[in-house]
């Protein structure tokens, strides 16, 4: 059993105070839906931390040791999300009077290059889109460095956006728009099941595992303070993404806001980002003029940071004791920058493109997964120079 550490009360209080403050600001000055998006973000951050639901480490464990635990949990999450989303997309939200839309993006060369770049970089940076946020929230100094360069890379990606968008593209391919619900689900679930079985068999062969139980097992009796099984993480992330669909009208995404934060920062130091093509597009142009808190992705990301901070302090594990040497700093810098740049090319990260994309029946999600995994393979090799 896991030993439960003492609660870090001052840090819990810090998190709660800012949670209440942002709840008040979002609800009173923007609206109920922004408040709900923030609350969902808190839940996402809490869940990501408690279940240690990371894509980077999970993929690395499989590449290096054929440990398939995290990958299997991710496949279960994708299967569950694909089923739920198929019935919800295109229907009316129960929060507001509007239709729910999916995360559909083009299947293009820029997605291939961007996702490969992202997969490689996330192994160097030590975290993916969601991973960088929740580990930075839980006190990991290295991930704050990664996040800073993630933001810079995102802005750089927006600068070159027109070039990357001009590369060959098949356009957006939505399975739900082109096939029936049954056909879409049959394709998606068959593919996910095949992948699940493949990684399980490879794990079984190498590590002699006999069952699937390790992702379902509770190692602690305390839900609030102990770690959660990966499977619980999978189910809750699908639940929160489902709620995000209804509150925001679109699925959970992470990295748009990083570009926005960077663009605001660049504007502050005198760079005229508003003249760049990307920031003249419909929504990015408005988002740049608007308050950051008006951007739903920013609001959910703030929630993730605070949710992870509270969860880590409740577990007594809020920590920034990692010693950062030059190599580690360089890894965080390179990894962060190219995750940001790659995410702009690939229309999102492991959340916006992989999780929400596949769940929405967008083929770009599958392309993203394939090339990001290939990139991660090389990232794991490159990681040895830094760690």
């Amino acid at each position, binding site marked *: 059993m896991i030993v439960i550490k003492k609660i870090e009360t001052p840090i819990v209080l*810090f998190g709660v105070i800012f949670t209440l*403050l*942002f709840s008040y*600001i979002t609800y009173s*000055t*923007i*609206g109920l*839906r*922004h408040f709900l*998006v923030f609350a969902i973000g808190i839940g996402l951050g809490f869940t990501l931390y408690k279940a240690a639901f990371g894509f980077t480490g999970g993929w690395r464990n499989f590449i290096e040791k054929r440990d398939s635990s995290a990958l299997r949990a991710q496949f279960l999450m994708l299967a569950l999300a694909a089923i739920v989303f198929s019935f919800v997309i295109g229907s009316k939200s129960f929060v*507001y*009077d*509007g*239709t729910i*839309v*999916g*995360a*559909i*993006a*083009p299947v293009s060369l820029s997605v291939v290059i961007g996702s490969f770049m992202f997969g490689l970089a996330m192994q160097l940076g030590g975290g993916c889109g969601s991973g960088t946020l929740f580990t930075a929230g839980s006190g990991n100094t290295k991930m704050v460095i990664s996040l800073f360069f993630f933001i810079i890379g995102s802005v750089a990606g927006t600068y070159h956006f027109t070039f990357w968008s001009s590369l060959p593209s098949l356009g*957006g391919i*939505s399975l739900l*728009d082109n096939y029936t619900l049954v056909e879409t689900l049959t394709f998606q679930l068959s593919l996910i099941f095949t992948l699940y079985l493949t990684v399980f068999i490879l794990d079984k062969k190498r590590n002699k595992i006999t069952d699937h139980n390790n992702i379902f097992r509770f190692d602690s009796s305390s839900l609030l303070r102990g770690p959660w099984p990966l499977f619980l993480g999978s189910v809750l992330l699908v639940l929160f993404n489902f709620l995000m669909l209804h509150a925001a*009208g*679109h699925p959970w995404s992470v*990295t*748009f806001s990083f570009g*926005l934060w960077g663009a605001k920062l660049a504007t502050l130091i005198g760079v005229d980002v508003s003249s760049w093509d990307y920031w003249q*597009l*419909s*929504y*990015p142009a*408005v*988002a740049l*003029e*608007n*308050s*950051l*808190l*008006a*951007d*739903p*992705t*920013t609001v959910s990301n*703030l929630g993730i*940071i605070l949710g992870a901070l509270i969860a880590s302090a409740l577990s007594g594990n809020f920590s*920034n*004791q990692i010693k950062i040497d030059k190599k580690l700093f360089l890894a965080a810098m390179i990894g962060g920058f190219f995750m940001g740049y790659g*995410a*702009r*090319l690939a*229309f*999102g*990260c492991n*959340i*916006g*493109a992989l999780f*929400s994309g596949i769940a*929405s029946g967008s083929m*770009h999600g599958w392309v993203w997964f394939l090339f990001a995994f290939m990139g991660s393979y090389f990232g794991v090799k490159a990681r040895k120079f830094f760690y």
Partner: protein
Amino acid sequence: MKNILYLLILTTFFAVIIYDHKYSGVAYNPLFHKEGETSGSINAMPCGLGGAQNHKH
């Protein structure tokens, strides 16, 4: 001490966001797009554009 420094960095980040909120204001609320302003799931929200194709205003 290190924790205090870390929390100070986070506080600065949150303070900048709150300052930006007061300074920039909310000229357009992206979550208030009306029914009929979305044009089907093919034009749905890709993360990279933050819903650019999804919000006409």
